[in-house]
């Protein structure tokens, strides 16, 4: 390791170059701030939107009408609607059309068939809120836009820790993983926007245990922001409420509502009450509502459950294929073609995937700022607002703009700031290097974490949590931490990054243990065997949790959901 750690500085540091991160960087640069964006891989193809998306949540007054209220209701009733401070949701909807138009200007086809077109994820007779677009080039297009605004993109430079001092956030420690030997870099900034996406690889893949990269969302997104912010004392929210996605079995992939078909029992009866014939306008929204359907049917023997597209018109089947390309499901399409699986003739079994964190994590205010001044967050790792791609895009822009404005009134942390801290942290990480033939590797650490999460912070349906299970699991998590510290060694920067991802996931698991213990009720897939009812007194409240960086004391706060 070099004696001096390389430094970069800018007004605004953006951590993560997915949709939210790129949008934050663009907005901050447009405000006149200097911006660096540190990205784990390459912004052209990183994150859960790497190769596309096809549904953009938004409110377009000319299509939906002047009253936003029915659209707000639709969002809150949708699969992304569980954990929202409604003032955030309203702000998002108000600014969403502007972002849609910007994306269209920047070369992403937001109205590929001429007019704004809302399709899928919809209840018959209710307003449709998901704009159907062709996002196959969204990452290269946003990358090009960010560069044209002067954003300095640093690829293959994952942030591993946030740095704060008495005056607040002052930067981050990052690790250059281009070469075999990791090199640590300090990124100095007046304000920081976190945008590291969802958290995957915490639980075993539900369909293919052991194949830990077979995940619906990007397996390189591992809760870095939640873990890093937790370590410096930021509020996290709703971490204990599990989320599970669904899709084809056993090929894990988000995008279930791009399929246009009817969910059916093996005897052909539809699973849900919404449609008997699927069209591109509505599809079958059953599993957005009955989230556990596929698991329920397996465990009670009525299954398996299929998605049947055989009654879908040839035109809509072609539309579905087009939508899958825009969504980035080309590996799925290639596989279907190669194996001669024609969705128009073959029903495909669906399943519920393992729990992951999306829309659970950092608490933000109306401007995207977290509980720590100068630290912002946007995208899948926010815990009190969720809007998937549209949410990431719009709130990324809001957070980036505000981070730039706030940076305007702050002074730059001095060069060499937090010198001892960065030396200690980088030495800590480097101490994991030097794998011998008898050492454990990062994979063992990840698999061991899967076991503990699967058993002791299990998510429903049909799996419970309890005070005794949580207490035991927390102890085992600490035992695992000690074992990892003692036994895991890695060979190079790539493996060290994977290990750091596991360490971040362990911090996320720790937060879930704490907050699941504090939520003494059953809600959604957080099922407490010792509190088997849903407490109406908690319905309008959120549970915040944070850990003091000074004395490691964990504290909780219940607060009213903002309207």
């Amino acid at each position, binding site marked *: 390791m070099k004696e001096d750690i390389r430094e970069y500085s800018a007004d605004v540091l953006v951590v993560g170059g997915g949709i939210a991160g790129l949008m934050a960087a663009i907005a901050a640069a447009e405000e006149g701030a200097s911006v660096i964006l540190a990205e784990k*891989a*390459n912004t*052209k*193809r*990183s*994150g859960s939107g*790497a*190769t596309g998306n096809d549904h953009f949540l938004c409110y377009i007054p000319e299509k939906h009408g002047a009253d936003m209220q029915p659209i707000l209701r639709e969002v809150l009733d949708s699969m992304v609607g569980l954990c929202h401070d409604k003032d955030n949701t309203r702000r998002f909807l108000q600014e969403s059309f502007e972002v849609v138009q910007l994306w269209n200007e920047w070369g992403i086809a937001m109205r590929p068939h001429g007019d704004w077109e809302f399709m899928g994820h919809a209840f018959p007779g209710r307003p449709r809120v998901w704009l159907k677009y062709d996002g196959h080039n969204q990452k290269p297009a946003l990358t090009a836009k960010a560069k044209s605004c002067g954003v300095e993109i640093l*690829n*293959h430079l994952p942030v591993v820790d946030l740095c704060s001092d008495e005056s607040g956030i002052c930067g981050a420690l990052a690790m250059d*993983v281009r070469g075999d030997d990791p090199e640590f870099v300090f990124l100095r900034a007046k304000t920081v926007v976190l945008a590291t996406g969802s958290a995957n690889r915490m639980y075993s893949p539900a*369909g*293919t245990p052991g*194949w830990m*990269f*077979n*995940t619906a969302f*990007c*397996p*390189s997104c591992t809760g870095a922001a939640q873990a890093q912010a937790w370590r410096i004392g930021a509020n996290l929210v709703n971490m204990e409420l599990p989320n599970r996605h669904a899709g*084809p*079995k*056993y*090929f894990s*992939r988000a995008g279930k509502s791009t399929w246009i078909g009817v969910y*059916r*029992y*093996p*005897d*052909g*009866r539809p699973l849900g009450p919404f449609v008997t014939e699927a069209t591109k306008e509505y599809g079958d929204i059953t599993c957005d509502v009955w989230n556990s359907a596929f698991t329920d049917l397996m465990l009670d023997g009525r299954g*398996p459950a*299929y998605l*049947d*597209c*055989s009654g879908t018109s040839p035109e809509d089947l072609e539309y579905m294929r087009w939508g899958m390309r825009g969504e*980035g499901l*080309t*590996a*799925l399409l*290639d*596989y*279907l073609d190669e*194996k001669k*699986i024609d969705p128009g*003739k*073959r*029903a*495909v*079994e669906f399943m519920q995937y393992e729990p992951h964190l999306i829309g659970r994590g950092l608490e933000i205010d109306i401007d995207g700022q977290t509980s720590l001044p100068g630290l912002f967050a946007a995208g899948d790792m926010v815990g009190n607002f969720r809007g998937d791609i549209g949410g990431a895009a719009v709130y990324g822009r809001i957070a980036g703009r505000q981070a730039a404005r706030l940076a305007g009134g702050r002074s730059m942390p001095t060069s060499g700031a937090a010198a001892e801290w960065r030396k200690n942290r980088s030495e800590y990480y480097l101490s994991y290097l030097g794998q011998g033939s008898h050492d454990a590797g990062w994979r063992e650490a990840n698999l061991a974490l899967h076991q503990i999460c699967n058993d002791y912070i299990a998510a429903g349906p049909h799996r419970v949590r309890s005070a005794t299970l949580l207490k035991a699991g927390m102890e085992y998590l600490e035992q695992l931490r000690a074992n990892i510290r003692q036994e895991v060694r890695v060979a190079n920067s*790539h493996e060290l*990054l*994977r290990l750091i991802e596991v360490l971040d996931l362990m911090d996320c698991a720790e937060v879930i243990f704490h907050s699941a213990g504090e939520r003494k009720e059953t809600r959604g897939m957080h099922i407490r065997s010792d509190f088997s009812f849903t407490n109406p007194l908690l319905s309008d409240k959120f549970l915040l949790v944070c850990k003091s960086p000074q004395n490691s004391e964990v504290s909780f706060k219940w607060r009213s959901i903002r309207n």
Partner: protein
Amino acid sequence: MPPVIDTEKCIGCGLCAEICPMMVFRHKPEESDTPQVLYGDECWHCNACVLDCSQGAIRLRLPLPYMILNTDAANLKG
């Protein structure tokens, strides 16, 4: 494991290694023109390498456990 590079078609530009979200490739031109698939079991089957390779030199081979379970839709009846 997932990405399979056709060495006849590969021109050694290294784009796949540059853009892979999971960084499964290693490209060291001084060692080999064609990038190595070093961490194939970390592939997320996002298809970015397949889509972006200007030579069409990459395909994914999905592991057997990833099979998509399917049946004749006409069988779905009581």
